[in-house]
């Protein structure tokens, strides 16, 4: 089991390495970018660059410095916020995004799994069609349409929730962004669970469980749920990716000071180092997610655990 995990970890490292290297060379290739020798930049920025990157040194030395800095979590100075390093900005924004993203993910799972199960148990009846139609809507419509619409309905017409803004620890301000963010993965999870549960319910071991006279909720929760959740486990990395991309939009619309909003601002302002740092952070997160899912698989299916 440990060996399996380490093998997977070893496989993930080259991917990360490629990303990091690609970022390094891309930034230097940017026309009109920070390393374009024809550029004239404000002297403070130039000074920062010199000290941070050692631009007078050969490129391989720069590369080594870059890798070394990365390992210490140093992404260099921001290009637009002169007094801040990228690391500081990420440090400020990350907790907000983490809160937003994890609540959204949790909501997607907490609602999606029961809804999918419910649909499977009412297969081909009204409840099934209704929930699956809603799921299609959730999947098809992007969060940057959903959130403003929700804001229009709940914020402006009904005055129940604030449309934008952020106060630490405020649930009201998180409600709509979390909902908009959670809706697509929630819908996908509901559909996956429904299909998977329908399959599992046809299994012979479920027939045995019913034959033993176990009540329906016991059969579902103890016997059917774990195998039915395997496709959901596979879906977790794309779900996290979806929430990450969604957060760019949601944070921008709702004015939440998370790294998503920084990324968008950075892209609009051409703050190269900021965007590069974000890309590396997001990639690392996604890869870590993939590894976690492998562990989850082993728990869900003991055969994987014992045979590895």
């Amino acid at each position, binding site marked *: 089991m440990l060996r399996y995990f380490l093998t997977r970890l070893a496989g993930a490292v080259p991917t990360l390495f490629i990303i990091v290297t690609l970022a390094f060379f891309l930034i230097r290739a940017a026309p009109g970018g920070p390393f374009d020798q024809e550029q004239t930049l404000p002297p403070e920025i130039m000074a920062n660059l010199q000290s941070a990157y050692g631009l007078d040194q050969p490129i391989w030395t720069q590369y080594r410095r870059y890798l070394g800095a990365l390992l210490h979590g140093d992404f260099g100075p921001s290009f637009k916020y002169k007094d801040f390093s990228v690391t500081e900005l990420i440090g400020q924004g990350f907790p907000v995004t983490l809160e937003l993203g994890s609540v959204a993910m949790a909501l997607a799972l907490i609602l999606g799994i029961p809804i999918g199960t419910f649909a499977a148990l009412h*297969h081909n009846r009204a409840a099934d069609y209704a929930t699956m139609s809603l799921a299609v809507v959730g999947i098809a419509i992007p969060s940057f349409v959903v959130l403003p619409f929700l804001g229009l309905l709940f914020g402006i017409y009904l005055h129940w929730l604030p449309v934008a803004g952020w106060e630490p620890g405020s649930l009201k301000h998180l409600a709509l962004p979390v909902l908009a963010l959670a809706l697509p993965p929630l819908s996908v999870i509901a559909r996956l669970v429904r299909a998977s549960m329908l399959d599992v319910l046809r*299994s*012979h*071991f479920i*027939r*045995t*469980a*019913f*034959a*033993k*006279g*176990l*009540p*329906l909720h*016991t059969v579902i929760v*103890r*016997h059917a749920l*774990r*195998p039915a959740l395997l496709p959901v486990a596979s879906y977790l990395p794309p779900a996290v990716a979806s929430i990450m991309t969604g957060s760019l939009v949601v944070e921008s619309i709702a004015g939440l000071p998370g790294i998503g909003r920084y990324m968008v601002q950075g892209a609009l302002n051409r703050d190269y180092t900021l965007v590069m740092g974000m890309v590396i952070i997001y990639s690392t997160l996604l890869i870590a997610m993939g590894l976690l899912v492998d562990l989850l698989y082993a728990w*869900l*299916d*003991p*055969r994987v655990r*014992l045979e590895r």
Partner: protein
Amino acid sequence: MSPVLSIVDLTVSFAQPNGSICAVREVSLGVAARECVGIVGESGSGKTQAFMAAMGLLAANAAVQGSVRFEGEELLGLDRERLNHMRGAKLAMIFQDPMSSLTPHLKIGTQLAEVLVCHAGQSWHEARLAARRMLERVRVPEAERRLNQYPHELSGGLRQRVMIGMSLLCDPKLVIADEPTTALDVTVQAQIMDLLSAMRREFGMALVLISHDLGVVANLCDRILVMYAGRIVESAATLELLQHPRHPYTAELLKCIPSLSGPPLERLPTLAGQPPQPGATIAGCAFAPRCPRAAARCWTERPLLEDSDPADGQVGRVACHFPLPQ
């Protein structure tokens, strides 16, 4: 003595996009307390579905008519809660494929104990102890170790022992075993049949043994019912059926069993033809196309199940216009 299980005119059909398929046609049978009844038939004869109906395990698109009474109580249409109260406890079923019939991600101990926790109100601790005792009773060596293992870590024979033990935990009045040895090696088959025999002696429950193999059924059962195309075509006490089969189908089945004592054969005997498609509506006798004794009447008039007046004086029935002479 009222029968433990009493089935009257049971008909099971399944709705399909293009019409419905009738799997069980007007089947009536009874199982007395402590009796062992064998049900024999080819795949598609309806033998499994009839008992799935009794256990309430039919697919969602099934339509059921008739009556199935367990200890006098009607099972068909029974509310879920009452049905769950009975199945697994007073009336249990063992299935053919022990690998896929046990939940892969739960330990054996859990799957056994939950029956007692659910039906006997025991604590998990007590139930687990009882489970271990049961494993010992079904001759599973190293019972304690096995309790902590997962189904895929046990061999087919061991898994089937677990299934048998699982069905006996609440001391049921009736156990239905659907092809319990079909998926197992021949040597293991014998062991499982011995186990069933021993359990019958120890627990005293009624046993319904469903199989396509007359040999399996012959050893253990007091009485045998033969099914074909959803109907019972013959029933008799075991010895009587084996020595004096009345229905041509039964006779052909018996001929298919190669004998160790007879002359060496060049080809194994088989039954010509195929059983009818499960959905087909048949005028006359369903076996007519394959029957060596068929005459014009057999094609137009369906034979009814009638008393066969067996030589041993016990109850025997046969559905044939021209049954074999005694």
